[in-house]
């Protein structure tokens, strides 16, 4: 295993892995399980991230995750109805008119309410960190490249949407480094002029460069076709993707009716594949050096799906462990199956091929100086 040549894993495999772990995390509110899952994801990122610009800034995602948790807790403290018996402290309560009966601002803050908000926030933060990990590990440009031709336009929009965060993080880091090199102060004053405007300008510049590059490569040109056939293709694609979205939501959301999930997903998939086939016929595009999908890709995506499957089994076998009791207060425990899921989630730290680590990452430094 250690003799493998360094190469980049197919970005789709990383995304499947991350989505699988996200699905696993969505099954539980047990903070211990979630923290172990997050730590497993962090381990994989630490072992297998590249030196690419988007592969930096996991700490930014962690800060964002902590912010999500904090917002959740603060809102619950201020607005939530506190029904626990363990009162932590009492805030001054705002008297509301009778029309707003049931809404409470301030008042007693119970440990049970705060912990419920904390658990929920940790789950949301875990999902966020999973997406962040996929963004860091997968190369967004190669992900776009490996999409089927018919959904290319859709894929551009999705890729742009998914890579907004890493692009902003990267721009921010570059500009901060450049400011440091120029010995510009890091104070609050001049933050907008010094950081915010350059970041936006940077993003705009790069979008223009990307658009020019795509234009010069003949992107967006295809055979002329009748209006009706393009309408059929578009309707099939949109309907299919919509069906897949509804189906996935119904599958993952525990409260949705079971009958909604699988049929909608299957029908959506069939319709989407039809649309892709139809649309793909009018787009002739070749890919230069396509990313291979080999054993490592299968293994990594299987880890994500496996972690999700184990958690789904756990929610059927031992749901009390996945939803720890707050009334009465109980310590959350790490169950055997969730521990197994975390172990499976961590396997790509070894299964994925190693990445090439350059001793001195010259590129980013040079870019930073230029900026």
């Amino acid at each position, binding site marked *: 295993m250690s003799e493998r040549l360094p190469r980049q894993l197919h970005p789709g495999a990383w995304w499947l892995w991350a989505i699988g772990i996200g699905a696993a995390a969505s099954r539980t509110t047990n903070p211990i399980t979630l*923290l172990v899952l997050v730590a497993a994801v962090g381990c994989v*990122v630490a072992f297998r991230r590249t030196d690419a610009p988007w592969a930096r800034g996991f700490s930014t995602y962690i800060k964002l995750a902590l912010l999500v948790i904090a917002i959740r807790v603060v809102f619950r403290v201020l607005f939530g109805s506190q029904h626990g018996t363990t009162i932590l402290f009492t805030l001054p309560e705002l008297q509301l008119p009778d029309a707003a009966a049931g809404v409470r601002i301030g008042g007693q803050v119970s440990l049970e309410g705060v912990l419920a908000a904390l658990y929920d926030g940790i789950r949301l933060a875990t999902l966020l960190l999973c997406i962040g990990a996929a963004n860091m590990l997968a190369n967004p440009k190669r992900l776009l490249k490996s999409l089927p031709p018919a959904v290319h336009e859709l894929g551009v929009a999705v890729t742009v949407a998914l890579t907004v965060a890493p692009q902003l993080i990267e721009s921010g880091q570059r500009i901060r480094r450049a400011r440091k090199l120029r010995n510009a102060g890091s104070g609050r004053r001049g933050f907008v002029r010094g950081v915010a405007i350059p970041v936006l300008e940077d993003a705009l510049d790069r979008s223009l460069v990307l658009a020019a590059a795509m234009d010069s490569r003949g992107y967006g040109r295809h055979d002329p076709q009748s209006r009706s056939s393009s309408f059929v293709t578009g309707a099939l694609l949109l309907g299919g993707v919509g069906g897949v979205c509804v189906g996935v939501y119904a599958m993952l959301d525990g409260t949705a009716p079971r009958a909604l999930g699988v049929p909608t997903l299957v029908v959506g998939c069939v319709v989407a594949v039809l649309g892709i086939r139809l649309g793909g016929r009018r787009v002739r595009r070749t890919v230069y050096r396509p990313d291979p999908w080999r054993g490592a890709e299968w293994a990594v995506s299987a880890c994500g799906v496996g972690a999700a499957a184990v958690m789904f089994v756990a929610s059927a076998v031992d749901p009390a462990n996945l939803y720890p009791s707050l009334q009465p207060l109980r*310590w959350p425990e790490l169950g055997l199956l969730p521990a197994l899921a975390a172990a499976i989630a961590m396997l790509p730290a070894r299964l994925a091929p190693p990445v090439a680590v350059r001793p001195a990452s010259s590129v980013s430094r040079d870019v930073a100086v230029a900026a």
Partner: protein
Amino acid sequence: MIRPLVAVAVVAASSSLLFAAPATADEWYDGPCTDNVGITVVIDFQELGGGVNVRCAPGPVTSGLDALDKAGIAWEPPLREPGFVCRIAGQPGPDREACGVTPPPSAYWGYWIAPRGGAWCYSNMGAGNRVPPPGSVEGWSFALDKSSTRLPPPGFAPPAVTPGTTPNPLSPGECSASASPTTTTSPAPPATTTTAAPTTVAATTTQAPGNPVPPAGGAAPGPTTTSTSPPGASATTTTTGVAGTTTTTTNAPTSTTSTSTTIPPVATTTTTSPTSTTAPPSSSVAPLGTVDLGDDQRGEGGFGFATAAGMAAAGALAATSFVVVRRRARLE
């Protein structure tokens, strides 16, 4: 990564004393309240299995949920909306209801209120927001696949007025009288269904008040509650406990078809159970279910090995990532 761990550890440590503290002072007792201050709490498990249980929470209470607490009844809210009641005495179990969000209207605990000697009505307010008047009655009845117009009230009529007292009426607006189903409005045939053998009746009705009922072992078929109206305007409620272990027949007040909640009942409560003459007359009318109401069926749940192992695992993984990141940073 370390910081959230530390935060969790601090929160956990600061509350460790509270985790172990006992819930309430044990002043509750089985059966309806004997004074006009305590809140009589009726728990009807319906299809869940466990029968009808009656307890008295010593008053005064600050809310309907407080009454549950004071009656020593374990209940759980859903995790994300902690204003509802999701489980009572561990029912419905985690296999049927995850209690992550609010339970669906097809299977939930309905909250019923009544004055002493009155009729049940479905509460317009949540149990957490309502302050029950002293001496009133609260009922929790599990509604499984019932439409909103056919919700089952608890299978035990609100007990009669404590002798020598005036029952406190419910606050106006708490209960819409027109929409309040009662135990005896259904036109049932005048026949009393009794499925238990007479020999098993004597086994459980001799239980003295105050003794917690032992939990039912294993899976048991649900109880059958039959409300009948004999043509004498007196209601007969027959409750057959799990596998026919408990059978108590009570004569409920006659004012059950009335929509007004302030009419004092005229009928006195008498029992026809063959063995109840040995029990004190004030509380022997309470049908006793077979569920230990104070047990939430979740075990002890102290700071155990699984918790420590989980924290250690998360910490070790986070530390590993840190070391790897540091080493790579030094390489660059």
